[in-house]
């Protein structure tokens, strides 16, 4: 137990109270560790708003969600009507509902930008691997949250979207059909499915999500924030003042807490504008077909997931039996180059050749449908491995070879093109483009251990780039 601290008898009531608490709970200690004495690099730029904004959107979603649950009915016969009831009859219900539905899209916008920041400044590199891994787990939870939440209004898109995604699991050989039955709880998406998705959406996944957010922040505060220069401000050689505080750092509170309020204000202006003037956002945030009650006998003529899932959905659609030949060629080529160019013992070479053969055989014997699911899942899972794929000498894009910048630009454009194709109806040209896009997406990550080493990096300064103003 820590030493019991006494305050002078003349101290104010507030001081006495705080001392009483501090002797029983580390209130002041935590305040210092995470706010008033948490040193963050002083050269944060615009990109650093999105972490705190993600936290803000999480709070918006939780609060509006709690109020929506008070009026919503998780019953296949009543769900659609209860959402319309919230929209029309509950006083201000429309506002709470639009905040929640817009919040879902806002969450993904903020999180995609937050992840992109991590990508360009190398914020996932040692020693921040776990910060990144927890973040990827949060992203997975968010996807689950969004998917299950979208079923709840029980509109046509809710119904058929859930039907498609749950059927993805039935593509897994042997256990698939039983697994999707277990997820649905019925032979078709129905009342049982709606009820369990409601339970997952309002309690199970949010609990996991909150735990992961805490882990994400604890891990971040343990290793310290990265910055646009990728310079370690708390490293053993970093300049420090007489008290051992980094010269390139500044306490989070009050500087960044106030700084983040600017971000919050900007965000809320845009957010409110959408909530009040364009809550459906042209059918991208709330799809028009979802204003039609679920009909198990008729799929709407054009179904597409909500925009934030579409890059991954495009990759799913790209895997046709024709595309499998391209993938087989990639596996064979990869194994050949690996064996030829990488130094390893003979047994490892044989293992690589054997593994490639097994994979090719599986690819030939299992339907393209299953591999589409593997590709879609792999596109998210591969993000977890980013810290170990990047072998560049420097962290930040600022000091990487110039052509890296172009490559990142192509990566972003490719991601947006895939997202665009995912909302479009299937077409032969779109299919080809998404196939090339899928190969590029995976090539970007899987070949990173090689390409990230190439080229001449620029010298990284000892101190962060910062001009006082």
């Amino acid at each position, binding site marked *: 137990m820590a030493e019991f601290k006494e305050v002078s008898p003349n101290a104010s009531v507030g001081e006495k109270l705080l001392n009483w608490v501090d002797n029983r709970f580390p209130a002041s200690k935590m305040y210092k560790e995470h706010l008033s004495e948490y040193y963050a690099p002083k050269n944060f730029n615009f990109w650093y708003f999105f972490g705190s904004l993600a936290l803000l959107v999480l709070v918006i979603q939780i609060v509006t969600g709690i109020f929506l649950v008070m009026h919503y009915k998780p019953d296949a016969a009543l769900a659609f009507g209860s959402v319309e009831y919230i929209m029309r009859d509950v006083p201000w219900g429309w506002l709470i509902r639009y905040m929640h539905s817009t919040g879902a899209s806002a969450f993904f916008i903020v999180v995609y930008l937050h992840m992109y920041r991590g990508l360009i400044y190398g914020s996932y590199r040692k020693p921040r691997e776990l910060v990144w891994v927890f973040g990827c787990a949060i992203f997975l939870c968010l996807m689950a949250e969004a998917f299950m939440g979208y079923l709840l209004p029980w509109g046509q898109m809710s119904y058929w979207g859930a039907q498609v995604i749950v059927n993805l699991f039935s593509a897994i050989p042997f256990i698939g059909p039983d697994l999707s039955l277990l997820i*649905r*709880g019925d032979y078709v998406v129905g009342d049982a499915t709606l009820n369990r998705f409601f339970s997952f959406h309002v309690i199970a996944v949010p609990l996991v999500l909150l735990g992961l957010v805490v882990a994400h922040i604890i891990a971040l505060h343990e290793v310290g924030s990265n910055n646009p220069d990728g310079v370690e401000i708390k490293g053993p050689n970093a300049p420090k003042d007489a008290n051992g505080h980094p010269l390139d750092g500044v306490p989070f509170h009050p500087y960044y807490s106030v700084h983040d309020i600017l971000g919050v204000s900007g965000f809320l202006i845009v957010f409110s504008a959408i909530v009040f003037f364009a809550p459906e956002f042209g059918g991208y945030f709330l799809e028009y077909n979802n204003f039609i009650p679920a009909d198990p006998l008729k799929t709407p003529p054009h179904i597409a997931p909500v925009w934030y899932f579409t890059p991954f959905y495009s990759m799913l659609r790209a895997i046709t*039996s024709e595309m499998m030949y391209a993938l087989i060629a990639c596996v064979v080529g990869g194994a050949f180059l690996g064996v030829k160019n990488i130094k390893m013992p003979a047994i490892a070479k044989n293992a690589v050749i054997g593994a490639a053969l097994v994979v090719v055989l599986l690819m030939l014997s299992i*339907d393209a449908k299953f591999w589409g699911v593997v590709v879609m899942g792999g596109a998210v899972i591969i993000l977890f491995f980013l810290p170990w794929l990047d072998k560049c000498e420097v962290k930040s894009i600022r000091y990487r070879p110039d052509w890296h910048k172009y490559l990142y630009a192509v990566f972003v454009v490719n991601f947006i093109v895939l997202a665009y194709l995912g909302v479009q*109806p299937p077409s032969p040209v779109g299919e080809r483009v998404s196939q090339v896009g899928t190969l590029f997406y995976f090539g970007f990550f899987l070949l990173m251990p090689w390409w990230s080493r190439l080229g001449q990096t620029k010298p990284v300064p000892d101190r962060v780039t910062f001009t006082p103003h």
Partner: protein
Amino acid sequence: MSDTPVDASKRTWLIASTCAGAVGGAAVVVPFVSTFQPSEKAKAAGAAVEVDISTLQPGEKMTVEWRGKPVWIIRRTPEQLETLKKTEGQVADPASDRTAYPTPAYAKNVHRSIKPEVFVGVGICTHLGCSPSDKFQTGPQPSLPDDWQGGFLCPCHGSTFDLAGRVFKNKPAPDNLEVPPHMYLSDTKLLIGEDKKA
């Protein structure tokens, strides 16, 4: 770590009780996971459906619900039946030999039906379970090949099927549309969900 010697018997009991606890914990998972299975009520709801097709005109389609899924009944015109010969070479599994959704023996023929003109099939794409849309109009149109003979297009991932529910080659859907067990009670009365074998 302390230097106290390991008490072997205490350690044995610790390991044994930890294992017993883990087994108990794992056993508790079983009832929880079991609740995910379809309830007895859901299993019971699956009765066969009787359909009167006397008013179904050539070229028309009707949809009935069986086990929560759409079942299509189409009375094909002679011209439409003729197109099946043209699509024969373009479909992935012309003779319905794949076994994922086994085609009943009485429908394992060119037209995949008991009566040549009346097609009975589950209107659920074998890819990811969307319900394909009717594309009976022949000729070039969006998302379809120019030599389109009439059939179905799945709006989700673009799988196409001919008028016998056979999937075209190189599409995401691996299998032909399922033909449910069905039988004729009379010339115009169909029973979907049961056949003579059962």
